[in-house]
């Protein structure tokens, strides 16, 4: 009987049922989807690494490795597998291509199309650049180490090592790694292994980036360090022996092994960790506001429904139904909407949102797979049901406490009251008649006006924080590499030099206006924190330095100069170590020596952290004569030519172009940018639903009033204005409040998003204020149109009916 009644109720008020369901759907959709995104993508990443046996440690030796080395490493505690392998950088049509050996047990590739090679003249190649059937011709200068000078592509692949657009650098060609191929191991003609890949023993909890994983890696590296020297000694013996006395032991004084982890080897591994962090922050912060609005709206809808149904409640009570039965009648209505809404929301959210977020990440992983997490499902469904039934029970019981006779009478329309504004007679009497009515109505329906205000303010906030995130993040790279750093390129030298004259020859015709710098990596430290910093000391602080490095005060943007009495630091150092102008900052050099530096100014900066120091102060601080390892300059020909020519010179280690850095910085934030768009779309959807809901309730509550106005002869636009003006005004106030509260909250969200090497703008562009406001206003106007048609449908006969 009660079930039948519930079903009838749903049928009767299908619009309201649907709007309740929709709000719950949107809430759960967004929450579950965004919360599930990072774990889901991490899961894909982790599975991908497991399936391909991605290396944990890569070893490089200045002497190469032999089988004895590999055997020794395999015996180290914690090592699961070691594979000696080869790689060489070659030029193919002037692009740098890295040639790897195909391994069976480590760094296996993910085959996109085609098959594995059958013979030593076939290869697998980067699916982003090659197709099956392509012939890869290696430039003749680099064919020595290979069995063939050309390889036929028989399969296209993604390698777990190259997962982002930026593959890294090379020391040949233009210095930029373009693509990669994998050839059969036998096809390499090198008599030592160029590298060794290590898989460590790990268990299922040692997910990428986890502390336990990082600890295990460090541990194994320490242990391999322990056997390093004996291996090197034997290897030197072998080489000396094989050279028949042509080389002596003494020429190997710098022989060493280098340890690289996934952070260094796998492109995007480190960037991904930051991006995960950023999406996680969004996933933790934004849904709070979202859910608040959803709860507000559903409560409101429920309250309205129960007031409308009080007559029926009274009937049930007088018929002798128990309170429990009556309440369960409404519970069934609410819970069925909540269950359907939350379950649909959960599945669509967790299926589609991670996919969308995943596509926003600039990574090459296998397609995302659905990952059902029971506990998230239960949280979403159980919490929605609890909240909704709580609201229903409280509201129902509140009504049921009344006497049935009272319930059978309709709720008296809200009484009119003078509002406080009327006590200011000089204002009140100046208002037009219609504004008086509007003000009265706003205060008469305080609750709804407040809901409209909070809802609109909240949605304006969500949309604006979306645009704000974009503003803060998008411009970082542009400002850093075009406004602050104004040089075209940064050339790293192989050996330190004392003066630019040593290099003039090799720069001729390629770059101009060279400025020598000493760049060293140090750590800023105090008792609790440490932060990686580049310390820059220019050869001259004259006009060339000022041209290349725009040093502006981080607060007032006034130009500041580098003096001999202190260093200039960047804002993150100031924040993290709480040092101000005049204070001392402690830095630790690579050899663990500590130095105190007096801070003379703080300069605007967004990417990485810098300490600028004059040559004179450098000498006094470190007690040594300065020599330079970096040159910044202007291009006078195209980038490819500059890089190719410069890298031919043994004095040059690498060349970085500001253009490329700008692109990399942009790529880093591209993923976030699209998530922001997603956020804006979903917030808009919510904003729209909220307004629709409130408008519908407004109209349904005031049908009689509207019908009366029509009988009195109000024209369509007039009755429309009479009803809607108050909503419009409340919406405008709500937008205003939203615009006011966003900047401070935005600044909090942004500082949560920041990572060590990035500082974000805390400002929101004027254009975003505009968009945030306009979008909501447009929604309000669309609602106005909908209201117009709804009002049109109201029959004047309603006004004649008795009040029931």
């Amino acid at each position, binding site marked *: 009987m009660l079930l039948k009644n519930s079903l009838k109720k749903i049928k009767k008020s299908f619009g309201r049922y649907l709007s309740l369901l929709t709000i719950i759907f949107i809430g759960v959709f967004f929450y579950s989807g965004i919360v599930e995104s990072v774990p889901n993508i991490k899961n894909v990443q982790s599975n991908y690494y497991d399936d391909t046996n991605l290396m944990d440690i890569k070893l490089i030796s200045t002497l190469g490795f032999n089988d004895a080395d590999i055997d020794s490493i395999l015996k180290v505690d914690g090592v699961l597998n070691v594979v000696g392998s080869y790689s060489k950088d070659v030029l193919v049509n002037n692009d740098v291509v890295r040639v790897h050996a195909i391994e069976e047990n480590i760094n296996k590739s993910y085959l996109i199309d085609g098959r594995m090679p059958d013979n030593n003249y076939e290869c697998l190649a980067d699916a982003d650049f090659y197709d099956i059937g392509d012939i890869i011709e290696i430039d003749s200068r680099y064919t020595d180490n290979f069995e063939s000078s050309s390889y036929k592509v028989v399969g296209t692949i993604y390698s777990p090592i190259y997962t982002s657009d930026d593959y890294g650098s090379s020391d040949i060609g233009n210095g930029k790694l373009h693509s990669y191929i994998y050839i059969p191991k036998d096809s390499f003609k090198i008599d030592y292994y160029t590298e060794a890949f290590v898989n460590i023993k790990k268990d299922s909890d040692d997910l990428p980036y986890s502390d336990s994983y990082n600890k295990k890696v460090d541990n194994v590296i320490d242990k391999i360090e322990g056997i390093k020297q004996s291996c090197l000694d034997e290897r030197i013996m072998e080489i000396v022996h094989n050279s028949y006395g042509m080389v002596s032991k003494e020429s190997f004084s710098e022989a060493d092994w280098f340890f690289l982890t996934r952070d260094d080897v796998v492109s995007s591994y480190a960037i991904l960790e930051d991006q995960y962090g950023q999406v996680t922050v969004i996933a933790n912060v934004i849904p709070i506001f979202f859910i608040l609005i959803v709860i507000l709206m559903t409560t409101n809808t429920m309250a309205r429904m129960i007031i409308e149904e009080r007559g029926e409640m009274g009937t049930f009570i007088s018929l002798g139904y128990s309170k429990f039965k009556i309440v369960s009648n409404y519970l069934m209505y609410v819970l069925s909407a909540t269950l359907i809404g939350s379950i649909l929301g959960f599945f669509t959210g967790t299926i589609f949102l991670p996919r969308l977020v995943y596509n926003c990440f600039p990574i090459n992983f296998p397609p995302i797979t659905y990952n059902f997490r029971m506990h998230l499902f239960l949280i979403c469904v159980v919490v929605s049901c609890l909240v909704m039934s709580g609201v229903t029970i409280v509201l129902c019981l509140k009504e049921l406490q009344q006497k049935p006779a009272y319930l059978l009478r309709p709720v008296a329309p809200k009484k*009119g009251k003078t509002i406080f504004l009327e006590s200011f007679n000089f204002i009140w009497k100046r208002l037009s008649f219609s504004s008086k*009515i509007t003000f009265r109505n706003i205060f008469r329906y305080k609750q709804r006006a407040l809901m409209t205000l909070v809802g609109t303010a909240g949605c304006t906030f969500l949309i604006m924080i979306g645009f704000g995130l974009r503003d803060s993040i998008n411009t970082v790279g542009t400002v850093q590499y075009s406004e602050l750093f104004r040089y075209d390129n940064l050339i790293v030298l192989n050996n330190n030099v004392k003066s630019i004259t040593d290099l003039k020859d090799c720069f001729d015709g390629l770059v101009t206006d060279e400025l020598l710098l000493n760049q060293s990596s140090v750590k800023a430290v105090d008792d609790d924190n440490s932060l990686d910093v580049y310390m820059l000391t220019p050869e001259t602080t004259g006009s060339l330095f000022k041209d290349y490095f725009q040093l502006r005060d981080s607060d007032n943007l006034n130009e500041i100069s580098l003096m001999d009495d202190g260093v200039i630091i960047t804002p993150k150092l100031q924040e993290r170590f709480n040092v101000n102008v005049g204070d001392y900052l402690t830095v630790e050099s690579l050899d663990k020596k500590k130095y105190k530096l007096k801070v003379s100014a703080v300069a605007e900066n967004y990417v990485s952290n810098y300490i600028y120091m004059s040559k004179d102060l450098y000498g006094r601080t470190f007690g040594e004569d300065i020599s330079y390892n970096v040159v910044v300059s202007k291009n006078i020909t195209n980038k490819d030519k500059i890089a190719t020519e410069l890298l031919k010179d043994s004095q040059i280690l690498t060349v970085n172009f500001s253009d490329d850095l700008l692109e990399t910085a942009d790529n880093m934030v591209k993923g976030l940018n699209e998530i922001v768009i997603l956020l804006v779309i979903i917030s808009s959807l919510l904003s729209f639903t909220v307004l629709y809901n409130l408008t519908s309730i407004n109209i349904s509550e005031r049908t009689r009033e509207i019908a009366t106005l*029509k009988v009195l002869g109000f024209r369509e636009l007039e009755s429309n204005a009479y009803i809607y003006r108050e909503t419009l005004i409340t919406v405008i106030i709500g937008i205003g409040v939203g615009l006011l509260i966003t900047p401070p909250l935005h600044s909090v969200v942004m500082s949560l998003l920041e990572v060590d090497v990035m500082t974000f703008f805390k400002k929101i562009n004027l254009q975003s204020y505009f968009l945030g406001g306009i979008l909501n206003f447009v929604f309000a106007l669309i609602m106005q149109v909908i209201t117009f048609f709804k009002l049109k449908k109201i029959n004047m006969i309603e006004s004649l009916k*008795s009040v029931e």
Partner: protein
Amino acid sequence: MAFIEFKNVGKEYIGEIKVRAVSDCSFEIEKGEFVVILGQSGAGKTTILNMLGGMDCPTEGEIIVDNVAINEFNNKKLTEYRRHDIGFVFQFYNLIPNLTALENVELACQLCKDAFEPEKILSLVNLHDRMKNFPSQLSGGEQQRVAIARAIAKNPKILLCDEPTGALDSDTGQKIIDLLLKNCKKMHMTTVLITHNSVIADVADKVITIKNGTVENIKINTNPKKVEEIEW
């Protein structure tokens, strides 16, 4: 020609089943007359009032008001007709709860140019002291007087009243009828009142009795009773 003419008016509602509410209905009303349309509930009197008040259109026949055939009006014209020519008094008053008595009258006055001064009209219905009160602070009779003031203030050609005493006790109802009657005579305002209460009919100039959707009888009272003489 009479001020208001109903010529063979019929009204059919077409829903899931056809319902004939009014058929072949003809009568005339002169300017300044106080007319009662009498009938049991469901007889079709409200439909007649709705059509006369421009809230509904007939499906057959002609309705002429002041030489204009309003049955040919579109929605827009009907709105203007209601706005300028009709004053409507509801059974349940239908005051806007959020407006004071004065403001409820002002709301109607701002609709037409030759409206009366709201305060004067409220004095006319003896509510000058309660002008600043909200409907919830007024008794039923007072509320109905505000509603009448609101209808009269527009200075309409026709004042239509739908069971104006239906929700009131006899004494108060009597006062309301008295008010309507005096207004009709003083302002020369054609007044049409529908009711199921035959006692009220005795005070009217003309009584049109409706039964089964059509006119059963039209009676002209050459000597209508005084309000004080009736009681129910």
